[in-house]
């Protein structure tokens, strides 16, 4: 709620230069920024949600074919990536804690590590995509998925057209996720530069917080993607 004082606009020099003119208090500004980011993440949930919905429907209809296709993607790499992202979320939290407690060096280190982990994730993704390209599992004219057994049903082969749908959704889902990671890297580059220039103090580190929220969200999307895509019927 907005503050009832109008003192913030007497330019006494008591307020933070980062306070924007249309806000009455720093608290209002911080709350608004945070709220805005949560809403934006809500839109992202709906965005990925449509995709997850399409995926779940086809997985229900073509379970065996999807299981066969899922077996051909590298779960070890996927699991590694999951670990990488979780570590990167940890470094984000530590960076924010460092800002909150005036630890400039630690903050910069954690921000840099976050970006490193992000790049690592993208690198591993690149390897996976390359593998898929080489195996002709990229949907399109050179797609091929013949004689792949359905897990748990020896002698029964997957329908290549249905498997192609799996791969189409796989690339679109992980591709969109990777795009969001790249945007996240851009955001963190900007945050790093601003942190270097001393923008963040214990009193004001809102951009770090909302950048962190975004990064955590991208992490959570992956945590759903990983089991859905990589771990269909793996116990077979």
């Amino acid at each position, binding site marked *: 709620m907005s503050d009832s004082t109008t003192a913030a606009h007497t330019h006494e020099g008591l307020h933070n230069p980062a306070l924007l003119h249309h806000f009455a208090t720093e608290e209002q500004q911080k709350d*608004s920024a945070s709220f805005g980011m949560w*809403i934006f993440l809500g839109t992202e949930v709906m965005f990925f949600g*449509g*995709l997850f919905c399409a995926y779940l429907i086809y997985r229900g209809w073509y379970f065996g074919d999807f299981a066969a296709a899922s077996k051909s993607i590298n779960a070890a790499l996927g699991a590694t990536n999951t670990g990488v992202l979780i570590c990167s979320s940890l470094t984000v939290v530590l960076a924010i804690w460092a800002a909150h407690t005036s630890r400039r060096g630690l903050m910069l280190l954690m921000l840099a590590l976050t970006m490193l982990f992000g790049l690592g994730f993208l690198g591993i993704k690149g390897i996976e995509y390359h593998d898929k390209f080489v195996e002709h599992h990229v949907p399109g004219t050179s797609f091929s998925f013949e004689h792949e057994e359905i897990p748990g049903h020896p002698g029964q082969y997957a329908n290549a057209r249905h498997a192609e749908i799996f791969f189409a959704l796989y690339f679109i889902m992980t591709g969109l996720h990777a795009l969001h990671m790249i945007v996240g890297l851009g955001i963190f580059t900007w945050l790093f530069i601003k942190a270097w220039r001393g923008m963040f103090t214990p009193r004001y580190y809102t951009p770090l917080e909302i950048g962190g929220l975004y990064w955590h969200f991208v992490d959570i999307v992956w945590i759903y993607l990983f089991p859905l895509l990589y771990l269909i019927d793996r116990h077979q």
Partner: protein
Amino acid sequence: MATATVPAVERENYLNKHYGVGSWLLTTDHKRIALLYLMSITFFFFIGGFFALLIRLELLTPAGDLLQADTYNKMFTQHGQVMVFFFLIPSIPAVLGNFLVPMMIGAKDLAFPRINLLSWYLYIIAGLMMLHCMLTGGVDTGWTFYTPFSTAFSNTKVIEAGLAIFVAGFSSILTGLNFVVTIHRMRAPGMTWSRLPLFIWAHYATSIIQILGTPVIAITLVLVVAERALHLGIFDPRLGGDPLLFQHLFWFYSHPAVYIMILPSMGVVTEIIACFSRKRIFGYTFVALSSIAIAVFGFLVWAHHMFVAGISVYAALIFSLLSYAVAVPSAVKVFNWTATLYKGSIHYDAPMLYAFGFLGLFTIGGLTGLFLASLGIDMHVHDTYFVIAHFHYIMVGGALMGYLGGMHFWWPKISGKLYPEGWARLAALIVFIGFNLTFFPQFILGYLGMPRRYYQYPPEYQVLNVLSTAGATVLAVGYLMPMIYFLWSMRYGKPAPNNPWKAAGLEWTTQSPPTTFNFDEEPVVTWEAYNYDEIDADHKEVTVVG
């Protein structure tokens, strides 16, 4: 409030504070951004209207003799896309909402002024993409993009149109996000939720839909574009996909989208009826909650567009039942507006004439929705002109009339000038008559069986089509008139006092036009919304209409 006279020297306001193209294109003032939107959406309105004109001209004769079939198909597609995504969805929120939401709650600006400007730039980029698409071949899939036609059979620029709408959707999401945060966090002291103008409640509900629904059409368009570009099979049965999946995803957004288009207009009409009846709205709480109810229920009815599409009988039953549920809050609003007139003191200024028009036409449009929600009738009238008449009654008879009423009502505040009242009343009447002549015959055509998207038809449908086209020309005149006299008034209109209508609402306490930061001092609200009894009792406060 300000004094009764207007000084000889023009006071500083948001229009004259800075000059130059740069000061407009880089502004973060919500009022200037509103005007930037006003110019852009008016431009697209005329583009969409031009396509409508060609459609109606073609339909004067049963044969397809004015345009080629492919061209006609592009005309109705682009008419729909431009009108829905580039006119109706932004119109009231981006123009009146942007201008008024901060002022109505006593704030200096929206929560995120730079994001507001970004949302306009996204709209412009999307608009340029759409224009380019239309000028370099166009798109002919119908605004509904049904697969597999759009993904595997159409030879037109589906990808470009899809991407343009994707970008426009992002603009819409940012506007909604801005409004929700602003309404939650930036209300002036004393402005509690139950003191908010119902215009704010309506925009809040609209913003919820924009935030939750638009991303789904975004991902749907991404899938369509990917399928078309890479020859995937997500929606193509020949490749294992399901065309009905597209329809579900598409309508999951596009049905709530129609509530994005009508809710703000309902908010406008509420403000106008209260002001020109000099009364608090009857049943404030019910009207406020009905906006939220429409937003919530609106997400539960999408498959009523698919009753004959091949869904199961049981799914159809559920969606029909829910569609009747969503009709109830709209009916409640109509009753409350009517009851507000009871024992009021009613003025017939142009905004009120538009509000009356809205009441009549929205009632008819809404009632015909009951026909469509009925499974037994929808079987017959789905995909016919009956549907076209229904949604034009709501979109044009409802949303557009609300928009025009709102533009007239707040014009003195926005521009500092008064529009010519006589011409405005005439225009309202012409619009009402032209509208009914254009669209009522289409109900009959639809029940007779004339399908949508037909450019040639059996000869026995001609008389009704000619009536409809005749009406469209009258309607066009009615729309051109405000364009002309609003522009005229900016140069030659009488200067407006701060509150020409003696209306309630914080926006009327500012000068006309307002200063850049709206309020000299942050207001502290101690009165209820629509306190017309206090306003009318206290004549000292009142300025005389010019």
